[in-house]
């Protein structure tokens, strides 16, 4: 619904949809203060009866040349800070999506490999769910980062270490027969 007027005092008067029971924060390149206001209003109106859900916490999405655009995690953090409550995060590294897959496809974690490029999402989820984890180096995380986690005393950082790595998933081809 369009917001009446240009200022927050106006937006605070816009009628709220009585049926809304959840605020879902995903990637939104049209995110704005006005939308943040509306999210806050629904969360305050509903209290614990209004869910706050985030699709994921990725802080940035890399582009070529080292640039990056802000990720969904930034928008989730903005809403969490304004509302002073924590979102339920569906995406990796949380296990919810693995549970969805596992329940639909009868997966045996001990015979399943998780392949990903991000230590703090893909590898962490794989390790948490008892999968074998394989890092590919064509994306976000580097071998130096892995080394750093491996050498750290912190058990949380150890969970970011993959079982294996490849330079690219193409490197898996020779292992797959003809």
């Amino acid at each position, binding site marked *: 619904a369009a917001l009446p007027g240009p200022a927050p005092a106006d937006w605070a008067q816009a009628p709220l949809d009585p049926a809304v029971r959840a605020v879902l924060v995903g990637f939104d390149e049209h995110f704005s203060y006005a939308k943040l206001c509306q999210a806050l209003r629904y969360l305050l109106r509903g209290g614990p009866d209004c869910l706050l859900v985030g699709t994921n916490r990725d802080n940035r999405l890399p582009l070529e040349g080292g640039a990056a655009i802000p990720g969904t995690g930034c928008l989730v953090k903005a809403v969490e800070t304004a509302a*002073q409550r924590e979102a339920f995060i569906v995406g990796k590294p949380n296990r919810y999506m693995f549970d969805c897959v596992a329940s639909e496809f009868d997966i045996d974690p001990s015979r399943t490999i998780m392949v990903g490029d991000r230590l703090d999402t893909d590898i962490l989820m794989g390790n948490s769910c008892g999968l074998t984890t394989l890092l590919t180096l064509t994306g976000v995380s580097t071998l130096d980062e892995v080394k750093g986690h491996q050498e750290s005393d912190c058990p949380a950082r150890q969970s970011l270490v993959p079982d294996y790595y490849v330079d690219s998933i193409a490197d898996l081809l020779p292992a797959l027969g003809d």
Partner: protein
Amino acid sequence: GMASCRRLSGAGLREVLGPAQGLLFDCDGVLWAGERAVPGAPELLERLRRSGKAALFVSNNSRRSVAELERRFSRLGFRGVRAEHVFSSALCSALFLRQRLLGSGNGGGSGSGGGRVFVLGGEGLRGEVRDAGLRLAGEGEPTSPGAADPVRAVLVGYDDQFTFAKLAQACGYLRDPQCLLVATDPDPWHPLSDGKRTPGTGSLTAAVETASGRKALVVGKPNTYMFDCIVERFGVDPSRTLMVGDRLETDILFGKNCGLSTILTLTGVSRLEEAQAYMASDSAAAKDLVPNYYVDSIADLIPGLDE
């Protein structure tokens, strides 16, 4: 020792106010709520003036320039408050950036005037930054590393025109590790006059920090930079100055951090129960949020002043 959140009244009022040389006041929720002055607040300031006690103002609100705030004081019935008495996070952020970007040893030799500032905020904040002698980066400018006239700071303030595009632009500038990330204040939300809430600078800063992987330097309360600005201009003695505010996590902690005795007024954000809960908590950090005293409204301070 820990503050004990005592109600200030009667003889206690005179004991506490008598020796004070001056009071620092937060504004929103203390002097006024929206467009209404707190009843008795203008009279309190008048009585302070007549008692020879200083009244200075320290606000995390980064929307307005101090010139606009001076007009607001007057419009809401407060007499004799001049811009020089008002320390807003907008002004102090500009002073902070001036120090860091234009201060001795910076920016002079290269001829680029210390670089530019990308401001996420309204006209009030942008005006303070300009008045401090700094140049602003425009919205929608491409961010190219190694530019001839680089952006040397991203300043996050209250920005009701905040967008994903501006967030992305800020992150582009912050790829340069020399580019500062500064926030006017940490407030997660502000109350509106009808009891609703509007998101604060803190929520926008959280987005920028998350995208950039950087921690912002926060100018406003509870950090002490604004007190440094006050001391530089007016030379106040913390041991003879009282801090009066309505928000435990900013005003009262600010007072504690600056060595001031603190008075919580209940016309704003924080409830007495919250102060009492902090007092009962085991955490050392919680104890710093407990005010020395509280009043229902700053009008309650009037009987503590000489007639």
